[in-house]
């Protein structure tokens, strides 16, 4: 983090002087300031969220994301909800740029409000929200002005079937029984597939929570941009519930014995 006031509000550049160790005049600068061109479209994410994971289970769909919004490698905001309920049967989880996600939340809320005012009994389900988001994301990437996010849409359709889909900043879409974005694609996706794909019958709610907890713990251990404080969203035919922040029990005792950690330096 660059603590010098002249650099407040400017995106850091990890590659040069990450700890602000040089005097101002001698400070190495990126070849070009990211704000140099005046108003710029998002060409890199600034305040970011990490992985979102999701899976289908017998009662519906479960999503999880931690509560951290990072500013580069700085753990900047530690109480950010990255799971957003839309209507009564959908949840959208987001990684990537948090300001772009807030913009999306507002768009979705407006959409739901507009639909409500029509008062015609029509409700937006997860498929409609997914389609809308994929059009918005693809439209923005086609304008070369992307919304820098990876989104997971989970929900229950009016016919009772559960839905789980992915959309990202390129407009790439897919649906799958398990989804993990970002670093989670490497750490959590194998665990999720092990739990879901290898079984003939769907997981129970208890089993699903267990797998999610296992994934979030693994992510906290291995993802340097993660936080051991996360929320689980459940969507069933009863509606949407988002848990209070949870914590995974972790063990760090082994670190004491490893050379290079803690008090032991040699």
């Amino acid at each position: 983090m660059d603590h010098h006031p002249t650099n407040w509000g400017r995106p850091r550049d990890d590659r040069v002087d990450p700890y602000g160790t040089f005097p101002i005049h001698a400070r190495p600068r990126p070849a070009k300031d990211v704000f140099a061109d005046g108003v710029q479209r998002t060409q890199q994410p600034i305040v970011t969220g990490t992985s979102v994971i999701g899976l289908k289970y017998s009662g519906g769909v479960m999503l999880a994301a931690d509560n951290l919004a990072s500013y580069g490698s700085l753990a900047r905001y530690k109480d950010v909800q990255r799971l957003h309920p839309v209507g009564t049967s959908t949840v959208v989880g987001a990684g990537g740029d948090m300001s772009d996600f807030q913009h999306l939340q507002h768009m979705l809320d407006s959409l739901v409000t507009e639909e409500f005012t029509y008062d015609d009994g029509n409700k937006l389900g997860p498929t409609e929200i997914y389609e809308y988001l994929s059009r918005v994301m693809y439209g923005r990437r086609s304008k070369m002005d992307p919304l820098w996010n990876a989104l997971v849409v989970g929900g229950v359709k009016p016919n009772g079937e559960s839905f789980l889909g992915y959309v990202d900043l390129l407009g790439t879409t897919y649906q799958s029984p398990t989804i993990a974005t970002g670093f989670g694609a490497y750490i959590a996706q194998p665990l999720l597939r092990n739990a879901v794909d290898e079984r003939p019958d769907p997981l129970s709610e208890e089993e699903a929570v267990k797998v999610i907890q296992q994934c979030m713990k693994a992510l906290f251990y291995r993802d340097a941009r993660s936080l051991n404080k996360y929320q689980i969203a459940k969507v069933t035919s009863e509606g949407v519930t988002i848990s209070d922040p949870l914590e995974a029990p972790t063990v760090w005792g082994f670190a004491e014995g490893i050379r290079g950690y803690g008090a032991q330096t040699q």
Partner: protein
Amino acid sequence: MTSIGTGYDLSASTYSPDGRIFQVEYANKAVENAGTAIGLRVKDGVVLAVEKIIHSKLLMPESNKRILTIDRHIGYTSSGLLADGRQLANRAREEAQSSRDFYREPPTLKAIVNRLSLFVQAYTLYSSVRPFGCTSLLAAVDKHGPGLYVIEPSGISLGYHGAAVGKGRQLAKTELEKLKLSELSMREAVFEAARIIHLVHDDAKEKDFELEMSWIGSETNNVHLPVPKDLFLEADRKAREALEEDMED
């Protein structure tokens, strides 16, 4: 009206010598002859009720709703030219949405009413347009609590505890004045509203009508919703019974 036929009523942009704008007054006439609409602002919410005149037996029951939703927390109904009312409702929806875009919070009813009445007033200024032939009732619960406003064709907007517009307004106002509105619950207000609409409807002169009611407040988690079916039917039945008792007296 003495000045009729003198040519001062041809345009909304021309005053009569005694300072009146006849086009606006004619717009009020359109309201005075239309189905009654009332609003009750009570302790914990607001109730809207309209007497929807059924022009044809071929119309589907419960179709062509007269009470509309502007935002999650704002209800709207009008008396007068229905098409003008719909136009204003859509305008109000746009205002509510743009307020949300700008301030990222639910708009106050006053903010929407102010914007909407400016819009209505603009239609009293030009010869090229006709003033709106409807009076609007807006009901909401916002951060200041329950609110009920009326916007007239002139663009005047006023807040009320109880409001009545349309053909049966006089009798309805008399009935509203008898109530202790600020002590009523929403549920009680629903029964009063149904009773008043049934009371002011003139069976002899008028065509058939359909009662329509919505509410917003503590009962609805501050969301504008139609009055639930069972409560509606009960209120409707009680209103009819009360009317018959009066006849017998």
